[in-house]
């Protein structure tokens, strides 16, 4: 594993930092207050090719490796985690699922407009009764003639109300556990498919989170994604990529916390000197920096494994678990270092603090990551 980034990777980081400073930061505090989805910025990122990062050129994407992908997500999350979440759900869940398990016909039909960012993709697993316990999903899909009929509800779905294409997991065999789940591609506008509640959230407020409702929603038989009843194993594999994305996002948030805290602590004077002269502050900064580097290494290791074509359930979960907890700790420290100002909306760390929490919940809570890791260890 190469530790030095390539010229292309460094250029990408620089480009995204530049883009973020000029296009993302202006108006960010107001957008966060309003919970406004940043369409203009997403379109800008689409023009740069960031909506099809993991998809080969043949399907309208760019086809970079997971390591480069992780660097891009980190860089965006450094400034705006909501945007990173939008891209992460689109790229490493939705599009990767279709690319990895779709038929040639499905890939040719669905991927190009998604990879070009003309349409958004959502990935819907969670249900009111099935969060950590994904096997408890109750949404059903029953084959009738040349159609699949979907019934059920999905909750907390990222870009749920905006996506034109949704990958939806449903039960196709009630009598079996793991071997009774399948995935489907559902397009917006299909009769029987509607968007329910749009959530008001603590953080990640500029990312769209919504409920999806399926009432006798009939989709073509060809929209079955992957193998029938094998959906669970497939979605676990997709989640490995997703967790790399979420880990990178957490590293980005944590880095934002550190950079803001460093800057502030050099300028802020109390007791006649910059507060960065106090050891109490220095140690917080030190811990943040060290943990962030460690978290990034874990994320990169999982990404590297994925790029070698290897499975990485253990490493992806370790990266996601550790990075998300690092992000939360970094956010707590950053707010602390900024004192009263850190508690105020004008300071970015207040937003990072709220955004960071999602990383410990989405794509499997910290407890679920520990469950996955312990299962791998005790195999």
């Amino acid at each position: 594993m190469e530790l030095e980034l390539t010229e292309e990777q460094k250029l990408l980081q620089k480009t995204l930092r530049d883009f973020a400073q000029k296009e993302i930061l202006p108006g960010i505090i107001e957008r966060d207050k309003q919970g406004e989805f940043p369409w203009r910025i997403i379109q800008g990122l689409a023009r740069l090719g960031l909506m099809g990062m993991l998809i080969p050129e043949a399907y309208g994407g760019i086809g970079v490796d997971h390591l480069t992908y992780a660097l891009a997500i980190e860089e965006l999350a450094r400034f705006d985690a909501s945007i990173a979440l939008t891209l992460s759900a689109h790229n490493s869940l939705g599009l990767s699922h279709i690319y990895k398990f779709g038929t040639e016909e499905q890939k040719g039909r669905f991927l190009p407009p998604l990879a070009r960012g003309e349409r958004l993709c959502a990935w819907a697993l969670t249900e009111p009764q099935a969060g950590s316990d994904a096997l408890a999903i109750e949404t059903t899909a029953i084959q009738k003639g040349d159609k699949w009929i979907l019934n059920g509800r999905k909750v907390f779905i990222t870009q749920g109300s905006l996506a034109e294409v949704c990958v939806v997991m449903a039960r196709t065999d009630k009598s079996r556990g793991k071997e009774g789940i399948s995935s489907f591609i559902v397009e917006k506008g299909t009769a029987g498919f509607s968007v329910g509640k749009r959530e008001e959230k603590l953080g990640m407020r500029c990312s769209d989170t919504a409920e999806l409702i399926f009432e006798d929603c009939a989709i073509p038989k060809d929209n079955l994604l992957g193998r029938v009843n094998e959906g669970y194993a497939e979605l676990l594999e997709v989640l490995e990529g997703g967790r790399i994305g979420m880990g990178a996002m957490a590293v980005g948030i944590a880095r934002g916390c550190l950079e803001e805290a460093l800057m502030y602590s050099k300028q802020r004077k109390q007791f006649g000197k910059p507060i960065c002269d106090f050891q109490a502050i220095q140690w917080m900064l030190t811990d943040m920096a060290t943990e962030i580097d460690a978290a990034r290494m874990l994320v990169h290791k999982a990404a590297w494994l994925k790029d070698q074509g290897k499975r990485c359930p253990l490493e992806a979960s370790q990266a996601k678990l550790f990075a998300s907890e690092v992000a939360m700790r970094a956010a707590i420290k950053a707010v602390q270092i900024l004192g009263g100002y850190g508690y105020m909306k004008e300071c970015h760390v207040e937003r990072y603090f709220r955004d960071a929490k999602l990383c410990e919940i989405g794509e499997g809570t910290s407890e679920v990551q520990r469950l996955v890791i312990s299962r791998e260890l005790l195999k």
Partner: protein
Amino acid sequence: MNIVVCIKQVPSTETAPRPSPRPPFIDTTGLSWVINPFDEYAIEEALRIKERQGKGEVTVITLGPESAREALMGALALGADRAVHIIGETHLGIDSYATAYLLCQAIKGRPFDLILCGKEAVDDQNGAAGIQLAELLDIPHVAVITRLSVDASGKAVVHRQIEGGTEVLECPLPALFTCQKGLNEPRYPSLPGIMKAKKKPYEVVPATGLAPQEVWGPGARVSVKEVSLLPTRKVGKKLQAGAAEMVEDLVKFVREEVRII
């Protein structure tokens, strides 16, 4: 149309450089480097002309140390077709004449219809290399342009902002123009652009092979002796009280402390 764009790598304005006693007279540790912002307008304009015409080639050229490769790679990622890197330490006895001389040596054997530069580099703010290059190549030049159109008959029409108005000038090609803010809105490098940059032709030319010692190195016409920061401004004085007392305090302050009356 063959377009040459001259670019320079400069410290980002985000970081404040500190002076240092030895060449390059600024402490470069911890600085981040970018393409000179005015050169970004030049690159963008070249790419737009090429895109409009549907043919042609954009060559970016820089004089700079090894690390200036990053700037050229950035330009290739934006869409330039080839890069020429004149390797030389820009700070070691390089004045704008020497820069122009080296650029001229590197450019003159190549086909070109148009040369674009930034109006100045934001680091030393000389604003001279571009126009000196035009003189050395013996081609027309217009500095600080905000609009450019080229036609098939080989003419260029440019706009430049002058005090209180706009000047419209016409000249035959080949010509050199230096670009000002307002000319266009530069794009960002796209991910495919970034991934393709490394596969494009990248020529390395050592500066020492291009110019004799009278121009380059110890023979430079102008050399930097020292760089210093502006003195920091003193904190202002705030007068507070009723209007009558403030006037009295002000007069006293101006007389006794500022001593201008």
